């Protein structure tokens, strides 16, 4: 009997109030500091002018190298391959950039990027981001992909692309260019923008060197961007 009596006394509940206090303070604190963004990285090779050790292998002598360079300018993309600039695609003015801006958008890219700089100076990063995003919609990414896919069909082994841009082009545009050029999509060419952005990557089976299993991987387009110095 005496035993069960003592049990009854010990049955008093643990005082959880201080723990609760601490937990209630910790949770908002952590919630505030936590960033719910997922971070990824893009591998790129150094600008050509750098003196660091180069990982480039010399190109094949007997085949004419592609030497693809895509330059972003406020009036469109300039594509250079096989030692010369490509001519303007159908629907773009002769003598201008290879791929001009989209005529249906009617966005003044240079002005939008200028606005972005003004917003940044004023400390409004969100507005600057929106401005850049608007400017980027004017570029004809779909036609760029179509052109790159054509080049890829002629040079299936090439994966290197020199990326360049006019000095004032925001960095976001360069990253978008690398996104479009990195992998092949299901089709070689797209006629509609919606279909282009909704398309998924073309998958190829690649043997994994670590375990010898075949794994699905997006097919490369020009997945090795080299950033060139803006002149």
């Amino acid at each position, binding site marked *: 009997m005496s035993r*069960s009596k003592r*049990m*009854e006394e010990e*049955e008093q509940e643990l005082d*959880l109030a201080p723990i*609760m206090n601490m*937990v209630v303070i*910790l*949770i908002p604190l*952590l919630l505030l*500091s*936590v*960033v719910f*963004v*997922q*971070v*990824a*990285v*893009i*591998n*790129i*090779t*150094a*600008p050509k*002018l*750098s003196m*660091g*050790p*180069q*990982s480039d292998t010399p190109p094949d002598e007997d085949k004419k190298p592609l030497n693809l360079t895509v330059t*972003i300018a406020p009036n469109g993309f300039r594509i250079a391959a096989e030692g010369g600039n490509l001519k303007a695609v159908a629907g773009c003015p002769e003598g201008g950039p290879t791929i001009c801006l989209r005529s249906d958008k009617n966005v003044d890219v240079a002005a939008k990027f200028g606005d972005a*700089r003004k917003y*940044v*100076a004023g400390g409004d*990063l969100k507005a*600057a*981001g929106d401005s850049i995003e*608007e400017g980027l*919609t004017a570029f004809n990414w779909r036609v760029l992909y179509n052109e790159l896919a054509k080049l890829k069909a002629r040079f299936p082994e090439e994966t290197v692309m020199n990326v360049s*841009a*006019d*000095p*004032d*082009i*925001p*960095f*976001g545009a*360069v*990253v*978008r260019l690398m*996104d479009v050029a990195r992998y092949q999509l299901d089709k070689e060419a797209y006629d509609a*923008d*919606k279909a*282009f*952005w*909704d398309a*998924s990557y073309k998958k190829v089976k690649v043997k994994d060197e670590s375990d010898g299993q075949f794994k699905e991987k997006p097919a490369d387009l020009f997945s090795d961007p080299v*950033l060139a*110095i*803006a002149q």
Partner: protein
Amino acid sequence: MSEQQADIWNEVKPNRGKRRKRRDEGGSGSMNINSLMDIMVIILVFLLKSYGDEPLKVEAEDLKAPSSMAELTPKDMTTVSITQKAILVDDKMAAPVKNGAVDKSMKKGGENALMITPLFEKLNEAVKRKKREKELMRQDYEPVVTIIADQAIPYRLVTEVMFTAGQAELSQFKIAVIKKARPSFGAN
């Protein structure tokens, strides 16, 4: 169930009834917060975990990395952040940035030069530190640097930073981006 346990069980039950009654009467009884505690602890653990595994800072008041559909996961390495106000090496100030460019007095050889001298010094220090660290841990040193740049930074400044990093024997670059799904880019 042993006799003793049954005993306790019987003891507890009427006790509960008593307590409830007391609360009904005077309201001085304790609430049952066990389940609440459970939830809180789970949230706490979850938050602590997600707090820990974010090696790169891609968003701040003067920095927002561009969005991309890249897939590679970041690793711990030397980072250079280019924000709208400063260039940072491993979160330490290297050079101030104004209107998307560094002051020409910081560049070796005037306005059109590519080399940013204070950044070069800081990078050299960071490389040395990293090399020593890797040596102690008996791992191979890789000359990799992650660049976190604001999306509105002019391309010119990015190339200057990359050139300077190249001078500091950092030859492999990774660009940190915020992951986004592909269709979202064609939304407008």
